[in-house]
């Protein structure tokens, strides 16, 4: 399988996620440059966390318009699996692959801490190795993670079982609607999430709850 991690100017979790993809897959992913207009055909595309373009405009909006994203969208539409983490999730909403928007945290401050997540949908391409409803611990680190969508969209997400992760009760760090931490597309192949599974993928870092995102997608694609 071919995996690619997109590197935007200001991405800063690109290496971290590449380490996890390589651990799961056995080979290193391609690090793809934002300015390239072509992307080798990829089975898995990861949009990493960070501050693409400094987040100086709306988070993710500049990155969503970079040349490589036309390729990402085209391959996603042909069925490539896409994972957007944190800033990558913001890019996915900005480029229209996922609905809604990530607003500033309700508490108005950046927040970095472990959160308890509930796996709301274990049928996506990324979550098959989790039990349905399983509670896992994955850290967040963001200033704009407050997921918002209008009522119709939220209802559609619920009806179509497209909420992949929610913050466990009482542990919502940002005020997100319906405690949403991550969502997916209809096919369950495009997942965007604010928490960072790559930061909790080995025991030395406190736990392995995030690791199954990567081993799960590799298993699904192999």
């Amino acid at each position: 399988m071919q995996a690619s991690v997109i590197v935007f100017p200001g991405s800063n979790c690109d290496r971290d996620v590449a380490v996890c993809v390589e651990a799961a897959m056995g080979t290193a992913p391609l690090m793809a440059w934002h300015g390239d207009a072509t992307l080798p055909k990829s089975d898995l595309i990861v949009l990493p966390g960070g501050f693409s373009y400094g987040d100086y405009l709306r988070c993710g909006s500049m990155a969503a318009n970079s040349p490589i994203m036309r390729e990402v969208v085209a391959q996603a539409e042909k069925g490539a699996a896409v994972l957007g983490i944190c800033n990558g999730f913001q890019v996915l909403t900005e480029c229209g692959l996922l609905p809604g928007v990530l607003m500033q945290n309700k508490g108005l401050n950046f927040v970095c801490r472990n959160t308890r997540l509930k796996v709301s949908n274990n049928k996506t391409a990324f979550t098959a190795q989790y039990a349905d409803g399983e509670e896992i611990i994955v850290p967040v680190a963001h200033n704009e993670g407050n997921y918002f969508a209008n009522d119709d969209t939220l209802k559609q997400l619920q009806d179509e079982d497209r909420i992949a992760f929610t913050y466990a009760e009482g542990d919502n760090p940002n005020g997100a609607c319906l405690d949403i931490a991550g969502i997916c597309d209809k096919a369950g192949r495009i997942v965007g999430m604010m928490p960072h599974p790559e930061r909790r993928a080995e025991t030395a870092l406190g736990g392995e709850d995030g690791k199954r995102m990567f081993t799960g997608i590799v298993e699904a694609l192999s």
Partner: protein
Amino acid sequence: MSGHINDTEITDALVAEHGLTPDEFKMVCDHMERIPNYTELGVFSVMWSEHCSYKSSRKWLKKLPIDGPQVIQGPGENAGVIDIGDGDAAVFKMESHNHPSFIEPYQGAATGVGGIMRDVFTMGARPVANLNALRFGQPDHAKTRHLVAGVVSGIGGYGNCMGVPTVGGEINFDPSYNGNILVNAMCVGVARTDKIFYAAATGIGSPVVYVGSKTGRDGIHGATMASAEFDDASEEKRPTVQVGDPFTEKLLLEACQELMASDAIIGIQDMGAAGLTSSSVEMADKGGVGILLNLDKVPCRETHMTGYEMLLSESQERMLMVLKPGREPEAEAIFSRWGLDFAVIGELTDTGRMVVNHEGQTIADMPLAPLADGAPEYDRPHVPTPQAADFDMALLADAPDMADALTALMASSEVASRRWVYEQYDSMVMGDTLAGPGGDAALVRVHGTQKALAISTDVNPRYCFADPVEGGKQAVAEAYRNISATGATPLAITNCLNFGNPERPEIMGQFVGCLEGMGGAGRALDFPVVSGNVSLYNETNGTGILPTPAIGGVGLLKQLDKAIGNRFTAEGQTIYLLGDTAGHLGASLYQRDVLGNDSIFAPPTVNLAAEAAHGALVREAIDKGLIAAAHDISDGGLAVALAEMAIGHTIGAEITAQGDAGFWFGEDQARYVLAVTADNAMAFEALADGLPLHKIGTTTGAELKFGDTVTISVKQLHDLNEGWFPALMQG
């Protein structure tokens, strides 16, 4: 050209405005063999400022221990470098950004963080950890909340965007910082020992290259501002505070790393304090050459900038490099790919002079050596701090009972949880943070290896004020203990020496005393100083801060899976107190916050032989897998240390030891609390044979029980500890 800035007459008033004394100005004229013009005066003024020249402190800095087999590069470069084995090096430094942070807390703190990271990545290292030692005024002072919020937000805003984890630090509150907060930023990076980059520029004719952000008018004379006291009009200095752009610095980091993988760079220096001036002077002087600059080539953000402004601007995110001739195209390709400015702005010459051309004129022509090293070295008058009296035991007559004292301390400004602060910092990015904020020392894995760096910042300004020599020793000893408590071996320190006005003999006496103590401890503990920074004139309207020589210690843990934390991990463990307890309450937190007494009493003395022996035992026991948790005893003494170990996982303890207020809250040094599982207790006691080791209790339940009389719920202690900071910030 009419009306050129250099046509300005050099008057006594103009000289004074530039912070030069009449004697210093005379020395400048002697070096120049004429009266300098306006631009040259500006250049001398920043190069000879206290901030850049260390003119009041140099004599004493020379006495610090700076050598050791682990030291690759000591003080004098952008950052210190130590050997951490396997061809890896740790590169680190701590630096102050006090004056700007008081005037504009967000940008002041942000650019402090940005500046220290540039110092580290200039050396060829990738920054892997940031820490911050912060001091604010009393919590209820009108400005404190605003300053805390701004500084924390600025630190996070910069470090988070850079993708370098902020893993630790310290915060104190004291009225002496009401008018002068301290923002000391430390950065640690990792490099290969054969790929360290230095500032020295060599090779006549080699191109001098400017990369990074464009130059604006921000920060002009920042170094001079940092070399003067504040008064009521200091708010007017806001324009001298720089504005940070962490996004550009992230690009600069990646572009520099990419270029550094080649062999195109001869020398590299970041443009920090005094910007283009100090970077070009330092590079050329260290290489023993001259430098010709053409300011017409400098990328500018604003129009009609004078040469004077370009030379003195402290615009951020800029670097100066000397490249091997002919390598400009490949370097330019890298920087333009990252969207950064790249300009050849000069070349090295054999003149030993700095010559600056702008708009067809030579606007400055100065000898380099006096600029770099010619600032006078002052042996300022200093009087030793008077010996403080011993703690007055009569103060204990109406002291609160043990439970009330402990609960008060757990919710005090010094002990309260810093969660409100550190959750605003990304402490986990880079995926190597093994232990982030809240431990004795932070632990950061060296990427791709099984070893880790242990990092801690420490100083107790109350001790330094009461007894500078013991306080200076204690700061080093505490960093040593905090690192040892994780299992790591302490290797070297950086320091950030924050003091008041050195022209006052009693302040200079504090400085001299603290350095004497620091030097002695560094020698005794084999813990040399490899980099540092001095920040003087931390005074407002003649009132100085507590002497605050912050220490940043770095240690190495060879096998990261041996690391332990500072929280009780299970019930049924034996709790030991390592070290002697005389019950020393002078200058303690108990004195200040429980007794509410601010008299000056002698702080605890530091027994360096005991520090070394106890540290060695703790490290060896951890290496042998005998210890489950270890915690250094500092602010608040034994009782607070026990409570901190309990609240982590809500595991209580029954403490059988008995004692008075001095026993529970005394701050005697060289002490640790250690938790040991039952099956390791015998082996551990055997290992500690001959050292003062006392069994004081057992972990159990969800309460802390001190004998039969005092029982406190761990949850209550936890909630008190967590509640203080959010309550402060909500106001």
